[in-house]
């Protein structure tokens, strides 16, 4: 049966089948038939300004001249790209262009190809500049459609028409991305060099423009960062059982769709990118406009909420709260009080589990009822933290403090609160469930700053792809990625354009997880600024020096040894019977296949204990492998030899690590 969405047409006698609404120009290009087109570019919608792409169309009843760039194919037609009528009209158009812009190379070339050597007309506004603006409109269209800005536009009419910023003044909203200059076919737009005198501004712009072009072409079908930002991860993490639910006990929830990115796309965000950094075309920061607050000191006022990002949403599911209005409210007040949404939500998730387990009650919390899902009480707790009063005084000090406080003041079982209090080195976990990825447990536990995934996000690589099965494989990933990702911090760059947009050929590279095309771009950024050529290895080497130095700093401050890389058991496996039984099939299979223990006939309590024994041993093996790969002692201390190799063997550094066996 014929596909209703396909249409077969003839172009210069050649038959071609294309999807309905394909333009004639696209259809011709698909079979390598050349049609000249000056104002057309794949990055923007067709505009039909230059009229060079005219073709003659015969629909069986009549023939007509149409511009092929914006003529959609909807039924069988015959197209003639070089009929006498077409050639005559195209020549006239080119003569008029040549009369106005006689020295612009692209016009001269097109005219020559069409057999026009000299214009017969004299244009009243002739422009002899070889870089003259030819009014094709590509610049303003890429600004509007590609970058989602409207910085430049046509002004005046007739022969006075030109392209300008409004009122001929510099526009503060111009992100300086350079897309208009890059797309301009004549060089009419040039970028002013940066006042901070980079070594090679052009090299930097070219590397940046490749990312911009990828954003325009692929973002919508890839991560949709400009549409919804990192919120797109909510539904994805839920699908892979990785979205933290109820203090990381579970990885998905039936109510997740209530806080998915689609909800925020429809109801909250303004549909415009709200980038956090001038010049960034990923522009993934999102805002909720005109949001009416229901609680706190600004109750009743309408405000702009800066967010939510994925972590804020994952923090909400972690508290068992699936209400987009709550998310906006806690996002706003965390920002207003200067609190991190991750620390607040992970801390409150811990409190909620303690409340449900009987460690806390209304009396101990000063009247707050705080089981999972208690959104009003969670907001009141947030305000108490902001005001520095009541139970907020305890909660605001973080999980590490609370664990000790609950044991000393409320008689909590230390084993339980230490198992479920999700922090490492005193910092609260960010919002991913790590139980099924040993490498990611290491990513959180070994991270220098505490339990954060930004040194290494290896869950897919480890758990889903099964690309790093051995301890050595995981250790290699826990060497490369933390070093690479540290490099962004060294240079003050954001990581997201590295791995939230992908070059077209990335899949065909040797190591797609590293996104080699983008690493090359960062080498060019660095060289463009400093004049020093770089490779992937040299960038990583820069980080390795700093990373090891930071580890020594941690050591000096009392956080740099093996014991400080310990993780709460909830990060590695199921703490409670209920948790085990919720994924019993998975855990039973893993006991059998990974630990070599047949769980048949065992109680859930026995299986929880055996799973724990196995997983805790695995984590210790992982630490051994990572320390070895990094050139550290088995206690996690950089060795003297490693520090000498890296050139950070300062006398006081050597003295310190020697004291700790380095």
């Amino acid at each position: 049966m014929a596909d209703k969405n396909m249409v077969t047409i003839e172009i210069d006698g050649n038959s071609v089948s294309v999807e309905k609404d394909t333009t004639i120009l696209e259809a011709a290009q698909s079979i390598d038939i050349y049609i000249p087109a000056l104002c057309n570019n794949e990055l923007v919608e067709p505009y039909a300004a230059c009229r060079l792409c005219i073709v003659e169309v015969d629909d069986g009843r009549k023939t007509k001249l149409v511009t092929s760039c914006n003529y959609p194919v909807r039924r069988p037609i015959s197209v003639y790209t070089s009929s006498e009528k077409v050639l005559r009209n195209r020549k006239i158009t080119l003569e008029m262009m040549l009369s106005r812009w006689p020295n612009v190379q692209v016009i001269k070339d097109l005219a020559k190809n069409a057999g026009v050597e000299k214009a017969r007309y004299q244009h009243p506004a002739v422009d002899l500049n070889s870089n003259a603006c030819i009014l094709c409109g590509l610049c303003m269209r890429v600004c509007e459609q590609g970058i989602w800005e409207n910085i430049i536009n046509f002004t005046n009419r007739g022969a006075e028409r030109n392209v300008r910023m409004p009122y001929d003044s510099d526009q503060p909203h111009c992100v300086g991305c350079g897309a208009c200059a890059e797309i301009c076919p004549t060089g009419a737009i040039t970028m002013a060099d940066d006042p901070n005198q980079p070594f090679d501004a052009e090299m930097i712009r070219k590397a940046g423009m490749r990312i911009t072009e990828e954003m325009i072409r692929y973002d919508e079908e890839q991560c949709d960062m400009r549409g919804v930002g990192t919120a797109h991860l909510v539904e994805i993490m839920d699908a892979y059982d990785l979205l933290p639910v109820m203090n990381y006990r579970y990885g998905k929830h039936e109510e997740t769709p209530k806080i998915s990115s689609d909800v925020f796309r429809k109801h909250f965000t303004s549909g415009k990118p709200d980038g956090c950094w001038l010049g960034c075309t990923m522009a993934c920061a999102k805002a909720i406009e005109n949001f009416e607050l229901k609680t706190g000191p600004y109750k009743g006022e309408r405000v702009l909420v800066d967010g939510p990002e994925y972590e804020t949403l994952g923090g909400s599911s972690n508290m068992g709260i699936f209400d987009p209005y709550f998310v906006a409210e806690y996002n706003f007040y965390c920002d207003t009080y200067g609190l991190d949404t991750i620390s607040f939500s992970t801390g409150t998730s811990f409190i909620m589990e303690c409340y449900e387990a009987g460690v806390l009650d209304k009396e101990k919390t000063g009247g707050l009822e705080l089981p999972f899902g208690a959104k009003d009480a969670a907001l009141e707790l947030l305000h108490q933290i902001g005001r520095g009063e009541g139970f907020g005084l305890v909660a605001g000090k973080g999980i590490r403090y609370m664990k000790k406080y609950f044991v000393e003041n409320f008689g909590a079982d230390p084993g339980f609160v230490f198992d479920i209090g999700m922090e490492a080195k005193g910092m609260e976990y960010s919002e991913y469930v790590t139980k099924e990825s040993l490498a990611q447990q290491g990513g959180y536990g070994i991270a220098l700053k505490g339990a954060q995934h930004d040194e290494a996000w290896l869950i897919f690589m480890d758990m889903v792809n099964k690309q790093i099965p051995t301890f050595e494989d995981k250790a290699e990933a826990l060497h490369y990625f933390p070093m690479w990702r540290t490099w962004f911090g060294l240079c003050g760059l954001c990581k997201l354009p590295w791995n939230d947009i992908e070059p077209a050929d990335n899949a065909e590279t040797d190591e797609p997880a590293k996104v080699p095309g983008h690493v090359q771009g960062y080498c060019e950024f660095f060289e463009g600024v400093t004049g020093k050529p770089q490779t992937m290895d040299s960038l990583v080497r820069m980080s390795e020096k700093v990373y090891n130095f930071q580890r020594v700093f941690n050591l000096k401050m009392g956080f740099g040894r093996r014991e400080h890389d310990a993780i709460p058991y909830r990060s590695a496996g199921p703490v409670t019977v209920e948790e085990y039984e919720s994924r019993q099939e998975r855990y039973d299979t893993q006991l059998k296949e990974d630990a070599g223990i047949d769980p048949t006939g065992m109680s859930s309590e026995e299986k929880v204990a055996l799973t724990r024994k196995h997983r805790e041993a695995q984590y210790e093996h992982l630490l051994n492998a990572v320390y070895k790969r990094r050139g550290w002692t088995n206690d996690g201390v950089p060795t003297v030899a490693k520090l000498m190799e890296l050139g950070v063997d300062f006398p006081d550094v050597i003295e310190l690590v020697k004291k700790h066996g380095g």
Partner: protein
Amino acid sequence: MIVVNGIALDWHEGKTVRDVIREMNYLFPLLIARINGKFIPRNKYDSTEIPDEATVDIIHLMSGG
């Protein structure tokens, strides 16, 4: 039977890469598919049929901070 990322899946005649992605509920957009080591471009997921006994890798890249 085929093996997808180390997991055994039933096979039927005409099963495509897209079918496997749906069956595994792989919602993540940045995927790289290989059938017996051979790379399959994203625009061929609907039309590429997987042979019986094949080893299929659906590599997930990374995203987020």
